[in-house]
């Protein structure tokens, strides 16, 4: 046990003097991740606003056929530009990406409208261009609204109430809390926390294993009367210490910087006060031990510092994958998912940020499974150091 602490203290001290370790553990992760995150948030909020405020660009062919419709569109912030020619010309303009949306009003439009027959207009669009979806929906809705207006005038002219046409009305009632709305955006928060945590231990794990071997200091170390358990345990704990530090700094930076992003202006609120920040830290601690064991184990397999670097750079992405999927598919917290490390922490953090209660069973299951896997990996690492091939 004493040897374990000796190893731990020495690795912490030595890495504290290594600029690369300090930079990645204490500066890059804790500052870089929140910065990147704030940038992403602002970008996505700005884009959301842009969509509503921006005038809709709509190419219209045959606008002379429907002056009232065009006037209605112009009143509703549609920037109408004329396209010369007919349907074929509009189709070609969309296909060649000269315009994104083209509305074609055929010659018979006015005549059919007057006689009360359905009047057809054509909206040309390229559905393989996903960025045009919101604009298309807006154009359709506007034409639909105009159609409804015309219909209600017709009914009114015949002395009938326009509400006859609406036997059923759907009223959407949004029950999401401002905190709940925020988490759709903040689903990525735990992704950044996990990533920064792993980055914090990356160079320590490499230095204490592949670095030790490359320097030639492993062989004399292994000839000392200490157990492999103390040796590897001390190394894993040193990596974990840097990860824990990195984690704490990252959460603190998030807690301090996110209030500066004006979420409330968009009807969102974030439940990230000091209490929640501390709870997130505690929830993540088992993951820190798992991550440290994982990094140490994989780095021990490699032959050189460089090789370890390239392996671990890919490895740190693995624990973030479940989070990515969960964020994209909006996976809801379930007890059945709590045995998956990193995913369980992500789901628990999401619940905390939404100010939803988290169950003791879920927390225990998450911590237990994460720690168990961490212990297993640590045992494998210790066994690896007991093999003589560790010297390479």
């Amino acid at each position, binding site marked *: 046990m*004493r*040897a374990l602490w*000796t*190893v731990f203290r*020495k690795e912490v*001290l*030595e*890495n504290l*003097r*290594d600029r690369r370790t300090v930079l990645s553990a204490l500066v890059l992760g804790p500052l870089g991740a929140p910065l990147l995150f704030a940038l992403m948030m602002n970008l996505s909020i700005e884009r959301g606003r842009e969509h509503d405020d921006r005038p809709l660009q709509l190419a219209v062919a045959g606008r002379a056929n429907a002056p009232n419709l065009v006037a209605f569109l112009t009143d509703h912030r549609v920037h109408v530009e004329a396209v010369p020619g007919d349907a074929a010309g509009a189709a070609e303009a969309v296909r060649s990406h000269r315009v994104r949306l083209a509305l074609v009003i055929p010659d018979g439009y006015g005549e059919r409208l007057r006689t009360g027959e359905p009047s057809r207009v054509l909206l040309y669009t390229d559905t393989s261009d996903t960025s045009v979806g919101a604009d298309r929906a807006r154009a359709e809705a506007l034409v639909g609204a105009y159609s409804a207006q015309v219909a209600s005038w017709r009914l009114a002219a015949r002395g009938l109430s326009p509400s006859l046409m609406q036997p059923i009305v759907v009223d959407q009632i949004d029950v999401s809390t401002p905190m709940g709305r925020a988490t759709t955006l903040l689903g990525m928060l735990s992704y950044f926390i996990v990533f920064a945590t792993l980055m914090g231990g990356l160079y320590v794990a490499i230095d204490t294993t592949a670095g030790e071997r490359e*320097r*030639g*200091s492993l*062989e*004399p*170390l*292994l*000839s*000392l*009367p*200490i*157990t492999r358990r103390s040796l590897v345990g001390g190394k894993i704990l040193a990596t974990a210490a840097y990860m824990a530090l990195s984690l704490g700094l990252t959460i603190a930076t998030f807690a301090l910087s996110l209030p500066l992003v004006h979420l409330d202006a968009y009807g969102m609120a974030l439940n990230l006060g000091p209490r929640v920040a501390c709870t997130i830290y505690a929830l993540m601690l088992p993951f820190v031990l798992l991550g440290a064991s994982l990094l140490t184990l994989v780095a021990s397999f490699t032959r050189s510092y460089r090789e370890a670097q390239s392996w671990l750079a890919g490895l740190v992405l693995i624990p973030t994958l479940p989070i990515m999927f969960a964020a994209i598919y909006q996976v809801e917290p379930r007890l059945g998912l709590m045995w998956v490390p990193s995913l369980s922490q992500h789901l628990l953090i999401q619940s905390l940020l939404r100010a939803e209660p988290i169950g003791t069973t879920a927390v225990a299951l998450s911590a237990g499974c994460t720690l168990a896997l961490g212990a297993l990996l640590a045992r494998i690492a210790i066994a690896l150091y007991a093999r*003589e091939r560790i*010297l390479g």
Partner: protein
Amino acid sequence: MIELDSLTKRFGTIEAVRGISLIAPDGCVTGLLGANGAGKSTTLRLLYGVQRPDSGRALVDGIDVASQPRLALARLGVLPHNAGLYPHLTARENIRYYGQLQGMSGVALERRIDALADMLELGALLERRTKGFSQGERIKVALARALVHEPQNLVLDEPTNGLDVLATRNLRALILRLRDAGHCIMFTSHVMQEVAALCDEIAIISGGRVVARGTPAALARGVPSGTLEDAFVAALTEGASP
């Protein structure tokens, strides 16, 4: 005292060590002389426990390294081939780390480090980070590290590799001083002059076997020319032929 008893070790199809038996008594410098790849380093690795023999035993002061590694290794100071230091730690911190891992602490440990620094003439180097140390300076620190717990037995693998003339002389003087203080010293070299100048007892190793052993004088007497070099060459050629 170090005893090697019919050690064997094979890596895949290569038999690196084929039944080496040797006794290195206290107060005596025992040299393992052999060409590169003769099995010297492997023999030492079997002794200090980083590799396990396929058969045979290695004993340090009568304690079996395989069955009681921690007890045996505590009585052994080891300087492996090309031993590395921690560049971000000072020489003192490097030595202290090993002292602590050997169970030492506090004032006693610091006094011991000071004494070693005096003995190895580390001077101002002691408080400097070892990054950028010369090969000679690094060997000194690595040696201090190996000696910090005052081991009765010292194992050195090619210690003079990369040392200049002066540093080599100093190291020799130190080894002889430790021998006179009653320590058991075993070291390997492929440089014959060095072995001749230092060793009380020589074992010539070739093909994983001890092909000749004795005092330098006795070995030299075994060949017509009466030189150790010819004895070495003769032993190697005999060892090579089945």
